[in-house]
């Protein structure tokens, strides 16, 4: 699996996700600067976390208009898989690749902790190594992760199985106590209609080594390798 990781001014998790990819593929991904309107064709594009463009105007709003994102939109339209994490999720929603948006956390605080996620489906490139209903533990680190979409959009997402992960309690109960940021219906990650683009606020790339408190994120990358190699 050949992967490209985008780098914007203010990205800060590009190294983490590059390491996670190298861990499962044995090869370094290609790092692509935000000003590059063209880059080598790859099997996967990753939009990493951070604070692109200093979160000016709205998180991800500036990055969504960068030359590299015009190319990402084009390739996503052709079916190239895109994994968008944290600020990357904000960027791809701003770019119109995923529905909804990420608002300021309901409690207005930056949240940095491990959270539990319920895997909603195993039927995707990104989640094929998980079981539907499985509970995994991965970290979050954000101030604007409060997912919001209008009722019509939410209904469409639910009906078409486009919800990838929900925040939950350690026992898998989807409730308010497991929700770190106020996200509507506890949504932590969503797919586009074809399930080739996935965005999520938590950081699976930071849960791939036992040394860092857990490996529950590793299966996401292993699943991608299996699907895309």
């Amino acid at each position, binding site marked *: 699996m050949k992967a490209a990781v985008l780098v914007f001014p203010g990205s800060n998790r590009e190294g983490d996700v590059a390491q996670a990819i190298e861990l499962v593929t044995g090869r370094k991904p290609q790092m692509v600067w935000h000003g590059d309107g063209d880059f080598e064709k790859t099997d996967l594009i990753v939009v990493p976390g951070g604070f692109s463009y200093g979160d000016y105007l709205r998180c991800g709003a500036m990055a969504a208009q960068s030359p590299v994102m015009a190319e990402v939109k084009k390739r996503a339209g052709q079916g190239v898989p895109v994994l968008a994490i944290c600020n990357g999720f904000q960027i791809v929603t701003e770019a119109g690749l995923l529905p909804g*948006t990420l608002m300021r956390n309901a409690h*207005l605080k930056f949240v940095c902790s491990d959270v539990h996620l319920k895997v909603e489906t195993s039927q995707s490139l990104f989640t094929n190594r998980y079981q539907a209903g499985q509970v995994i533990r991965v970290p979050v680190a954000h101030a604007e992760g409060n997912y*919001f*979409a209008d009722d019509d959009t939410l209904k469409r997402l639910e009906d078409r199985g486009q919800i990838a992960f929900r925040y939950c309690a350690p026992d898998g109960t989807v409730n308010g106590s497991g929700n770190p940021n106020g996200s509507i219906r506890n949504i932590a990650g969503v797919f586009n209609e074809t399930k080739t683009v996935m965005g999520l606020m938590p950081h699976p790339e930071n849960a791939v080594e036992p040394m860092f408190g857990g490996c529950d994120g590793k299966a996401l990358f292993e699943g991608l390798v299996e699907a895309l190699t």
Partner: protein
Amino acid sequence: MKARVHVTLKNGVLDPQGKAIGHSLNRLGFAEVGDVRQGKFIELELAETDKAKAKARLDEMCRKLLANTVIENYSIELVG
């Protein structure tokens, strides 16, 4: 020509920042303050003299960048 753009959250979209501002005002003794909604104010200098054209371009700017129409409304005001 100068333009002023106001970006506000749509009705029905929760505004925790507005709520926090309201609470603080109440705490400071401004008991008359009820619901508070906050937003953004953007002032732009335009090299355009035709008002209709300017408005159309500003509308496009708002939709493409200045506002996120999933959660935000915008209003445009031309000055001078």
